[in-house]
């Protein structure tokens, strides 16, 4: 489905000193900076996979997406999507892909969403019966039936995003690129988008490439993660393996009614107490999780306890702060 070999994208920009002096000087004296936004990137993605493309801001995720969709041309290397070179921008290729950009609207602002959908129907040559059926189905699932005839500029971000998704999926693409589809949305809207993508994937089995800074998106949708940092691939594998990059310890928190008088039992598990001593976070080895949790529940005033919900978030945070950890993997 998607194959890259030694894929490179170079950006050239020029350095400018601040102030008027710098602006005038830059008219004739410019020094250029060349940066590999994507560097020697190898990737293989198969049909029906949902792959999360993770990395900090400026890591090269969106640049990769732009190359995959044919929006920008790679500087060197090989790239093939669905057997096409995306930058040839053949219409047959464009009919098989979809791109959803959380930060950019693809609908036309000055007309109702339904008009945009009709335009998309014509562009993708969708038969009228299929179009009506798909619009009705998706509008019902996303709960946007009443919004189809409202001008896009009058919709909230969440409402617009749902319609953006609808517009992108009307032609039933084989590969879907989702670039931060839940950015800026409230929790309910995020959930609605995620559930929709999940059910759409179950039904039509497209290949999905997702970038997001919300680990909840990644956790609930992706089975495979690709980590990109400074343009280079740093991890490619199962989400469960990603969680184990920093070790197999499970992070568990306990809240107590009263602060335990003897805290020595906790110390060997890298205990992090809150200021009042009423709550502790522990890193428990997987094999000791059950036994030690039982011990704490039995011997201390525990109000509640919980295991970490998003281990990949902790891993991502640690890797972004200390990228050198990856070298010790």
């Amino acid at each position, binding site marked *: 489905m998607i194959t890259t070999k030694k894929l490179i994208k170079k*950006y050239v920009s020029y350095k400018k000193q601040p102030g008027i002096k710098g602006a005038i000087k830059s008219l004739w004296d410019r020094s250029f900076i060349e940066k590999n936004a994507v560097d020697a990137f190898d990737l293989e993605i198969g049909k029906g996979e949902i792959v999360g493309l993770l990395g900090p801001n400026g890591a090269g995720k*969106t640049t990769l997406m*732009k190359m995959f*969709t*044919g*929006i*920008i*041309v790679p500087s060197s290397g090989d790239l093939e999507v669905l057997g096409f070179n995306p930058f040839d*921008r053949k*219409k047959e290729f*464009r*009919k098989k*892909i*979809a*791109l959803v*950009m959380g*930060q*950019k609207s*693809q609908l*036309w602002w*000055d*007309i109702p969403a339904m*008009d*945009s959908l*009709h*335009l*998309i*129907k*014509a*562009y*993708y*040559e969708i038969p009228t019966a299929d179009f009506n059926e798909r619009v009705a189905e998706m509008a019902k699932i996303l709960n946007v039936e009443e919004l189809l005839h409202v*001008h896009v500029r009058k919709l909230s971000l969440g409402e617009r995003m749902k319609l953006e998704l609808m517009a992108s999926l009307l032609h039933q693409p084989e590969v879907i690129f989702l*670039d931060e589809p839940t950015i800026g949305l409230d929790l309910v809207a995020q959930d609605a988008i995620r559930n929709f993508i999940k059910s759409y994937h179950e039904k039509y089995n497209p290949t999905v490439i997702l970038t997001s800074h919300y680990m909840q998106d990644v956790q609930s949708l992706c089975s495979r993660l690709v980590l990109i940092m400074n343009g280079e691939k740093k991890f490619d594998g199962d989400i469960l393996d990603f969680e184990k990059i920093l070790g197999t310890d499970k992070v568990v928190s306990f809240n107590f009614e009263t602060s335990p008088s003897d805290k020595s039992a906790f110390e060997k598990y890298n205990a992090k107490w809150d200021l009042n001593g009423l709550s502790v976070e522990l890193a428990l080895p997987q094999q000791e999780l059950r036994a030690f949790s039982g011990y704490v529940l039995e011997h201390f005033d525990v109000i509640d306890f919980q295991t970490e919900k998003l281990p990949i978030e902790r891993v991502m945070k640690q890797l972004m702060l200390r990228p050198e950890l990856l070298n010790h993997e």
Partner: protein
Amino acid sequence: MSNFKKWLETIRIGWSMVTAYRLNFFLLIIGPALVFYFIKVSLWSAVYTDKDMLINGYSLPQMLHYHAWALIVVLMAQSSNGVNLGEDIRFGRMSKYLIYPFNFWEFHTASFISFQTIQFVIAIFTLALLCFSDLVSLPSFSNLMIAFAYTSLVGIFWFSVQYTTGLLAFWLEETWTMRVMFQLLVNFLSGSIIPISFFPAWAQNYLQYTPFPSLTYTPINLFMGQMQGLHQGLITITISIVAMFFINTYIWRRGLRLFTAAGM
């Protein structure tokens, strides 16, 4: 056939988009042409101190007649001047046209046609008002049709110019000033402000080798029932449009390699 449907649908949506903001549409498109017309009427009315006065063979009614037709030509031919596709490139909005199986040039050309049809209706309505007010008198039907067809060709020329200058946004931060400067220069040299017969002989001599007179002076003359300049105008404008097409294709191919889809 399916591509034809794509064009039709884009033209239809174009009408909705153009008329979505009525005040904006008036201020951007009709407003400037009308304001420009009224400025010229006031100016020439002040210049002609005597009712029987002639300047370069033009009486005041003839001069106002000339500028009334100039208004029709501007309404019909320069409707695409408000289009700023450079912004699509600069702000990365072009990305969606690279994804949809309908090309960037197709979308903008279909939008131009959509816009042009609305402008044509407005021009006809304005012409009816001008006739009703005795500010213009119509030529023969065949001359009128030739003038309309010729002015539509001038409209395609202007769209090609806007498209080419818009594509320069691949390299330039801002193309607006360049477009306005070019437009002002052309308005002056094409006879939109003063008839070309007012220019010094040497300037008229030079101008006849340029496309400028063909853009306003010739269509006004056609509307006034004078056919001179028609053949030269047709050849000049057709060659310019064809040349612009090749230039656009070249610029697009080169520019697209520089496109970074900023803001995405």
